[in-house]
């Protein structure tokens, strides 16, 4: 046990920790999780063993058919995986230097810049995405300009994975930047200076001083970006011209088009399970050898 960690039940300094206070702190969130997460998920699990009612929806049953059908079409899962990985890497590449700059170099304008980061997202998602359609327009937009310059007429950005990638990075950037910023902001510059004074190169300093502090933010950010991207389907539908069949499309297809709630539920459970395993593995991998001190600050 690390030095200042007190025995259970005792706060640092030896005072008795109030279990009541702890309970009260955790109660609202706990309640929300119980009622609005666990309960709905239980419903989904129950549905996944059912069958489609005659007119769609759920009919009680206990069959495994829906799970059996899961592996028959891997394309949506693979497509989503590729997109999500690419998108997460893109967000990291764009977001990490930005977060670093905001946290360590922006000085007094930090808060202003942070706010400016979110303001674009208060305009509706759809008209932002439409703006990308206009920007990449094969007629008058970027693609049109390239065509004009090269004299060709079939250069297109829309409908390609690149358009989707831009759309994804654009849409999820704050979810990567905020966690990174929130941890990097605690980076003490004197530590960095000291490290360099002691002869460590920039890269070594980054690896041994900056990165460990940024790591919780990096982990949170990449999870907050990767997971929703796995379920994303609107951006590929609009910017990808509907040419990429993703997990999100498959889910919407099951629930809304086929109105087969049991099949959709099984797909959802499958996806959630896979993602949960991935996240658990990721968290374990990243925290190997790191001891996190969970000493209360209250």
């Amino acid at each position: 046990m690390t030095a200042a960690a007190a025995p259970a039940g005792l706060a640092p300094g030896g005072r008795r920790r109030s279990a009541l206070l702890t309970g009260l702190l955790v109660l609202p969130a706990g309640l929300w999780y119980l009622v609005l997460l666990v309960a709905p998920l239980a419903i989904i699990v129950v549905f996944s063993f059912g069958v489609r009612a005659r007119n769609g929806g759920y009919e009680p049953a206990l069959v495994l058919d829906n799970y059996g059908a899961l592996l028959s079409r891997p394309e949506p899962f693979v497509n989503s995986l590729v997109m999500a990985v690419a998108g997460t890497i893109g967000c990291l590449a764009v977001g990490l230097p930005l977060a670093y700059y905001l946290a360590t170099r922006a000085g007094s304008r930090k808060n202003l810049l942070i706010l400016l980061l979110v303001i674009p997202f208060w305009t509706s998602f759809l008209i932002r995405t439409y703006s990308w359609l206009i920007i990449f327009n094969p007629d008058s937009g970027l693609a049109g300009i390239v065509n004009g310059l090269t004299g060709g007429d079939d250069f297109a950005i829309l409908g390609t994975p690149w358009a989707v990638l831009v759309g994804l990075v654009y849409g999820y950037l704050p979810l990567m930047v905020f966690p990174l910023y929130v941890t990097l902001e605690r980076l003490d510059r004197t530590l960095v200076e000291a490290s360099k004074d002691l002869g460590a190169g920039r890269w070594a300093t980054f690896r041994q001083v900056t990165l460990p502090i940024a790591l919780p933010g990096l982990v949170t950010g990449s999870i907050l970006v990767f997971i929703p991207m796995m379920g994303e389907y609107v951006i590929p539908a609009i910017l990808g011209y509907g040419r990429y069949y993703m997990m999100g499309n498959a889910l919407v297809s099951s629930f809304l088009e086929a109105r087969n709630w049991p099949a959709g539920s099984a797909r959802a459970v499958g996806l959630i399970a896979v993602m949960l395993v991935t996240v658990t593995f990721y968290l374990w991998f990243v925290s190997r050898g790191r001891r996190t001190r969970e000493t209360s600050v209250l």
Partner: protein
Amino acid sequence: MAGQDLDSYLKRIAAQPVSRRSFLAAAGLTGTAAFLASCGGGAKADTELFVYNWSAYIADDNIEEFKKRFGITKFVYDTYANNEELIAKLQGGATGYDIAAPTAEYVPGMVEEGFLEKLDLSKLPNVTKYIDPKFKGLWWDPTNEYQVPKDYGTTGIMYRSKNLPNPPTSWQDFYDLTTGSESGKVVMVDSMGDVFVFPLKMLGYSLNSLDSGELEEARQILLDVAPHILALDSDLYQDKLATEEASMVLGWTGPLLGLQDNEDTADAAYVVPSEGSLFWMDTWVMIKDAPHKDAAYKWLDFIQDPAIQAIETEYNYYATCNTEAKKLVSQEVLDNPAVFPPDDVFVKLEGAEDTSGNNQRLDIWEEFKSKIGG
């Protein structure tokens, strides 16, 4: 045409600030208002109506007229993006609305699930009197007690004639062009029922076919064209036609007049393929346990008042089922074959059924979607 609407719309707003303000007060200003309203409305003479509908699908003039004529102070018009959302919500147990506008093929299922109120036809004289008999007693509502027709239209091929020296007249043409000269310039709407019309009709089968052999043949055709498809898009295909990214679209007539009105895209045209196609009908229904049944009945009858229905037709550019209203519609709209299919086309149209429960269809559809664009 659209410009005229806009100008008159603006004039109306300028001229009636008071009624608009009351609309503001009504249209969901405070959560309490909505909460109380949705918590089991009272039994007073209805002054409210909750409508759940596609967007911009009712003429504003008609809404205002309805409110004036029947003393409705609160007309809530919420929107859904497609039938699937409406049905999913009802299936999940959502409540609170009086009127909705599903497409006809979903009505039988909704009746069976108990989502709809059975209509007392004695309260709907306009419906009984004016609806064209050929739209009554159809398979989706044999007793006409669950829906009131709203409008109807077709699925077909929209295209830019300037890019097509030999415009398509049949699904076979569509197939040949898509796999041939127009490869990579074809868009289809993202709707399983509509896309399946193409292969099934081309093969001479019913577009509602559930026969596994016929569906397998259809699958082959779909897989043939999949690599040549530019996009699967229900909402922005007119833009793709306008920029000439696409030369043909398997879709609906809604955007057609907008394209034709503009001089850059005036060569846009629409055809119902010769092998036949799908005819859809949108309907008005009353949701079970509607909080304002009285107002709902008034609405259903009001909307089939010929003068009112004519305004609807001029606003939506979709065909009306109301014989008296047709007499009041402008000749230009009546003569437009994309809006009112001529009789010789009409006989080749088949009404759509709800085939969303057929696993083979779904499988083919998902396979098709995975293979688009190559």
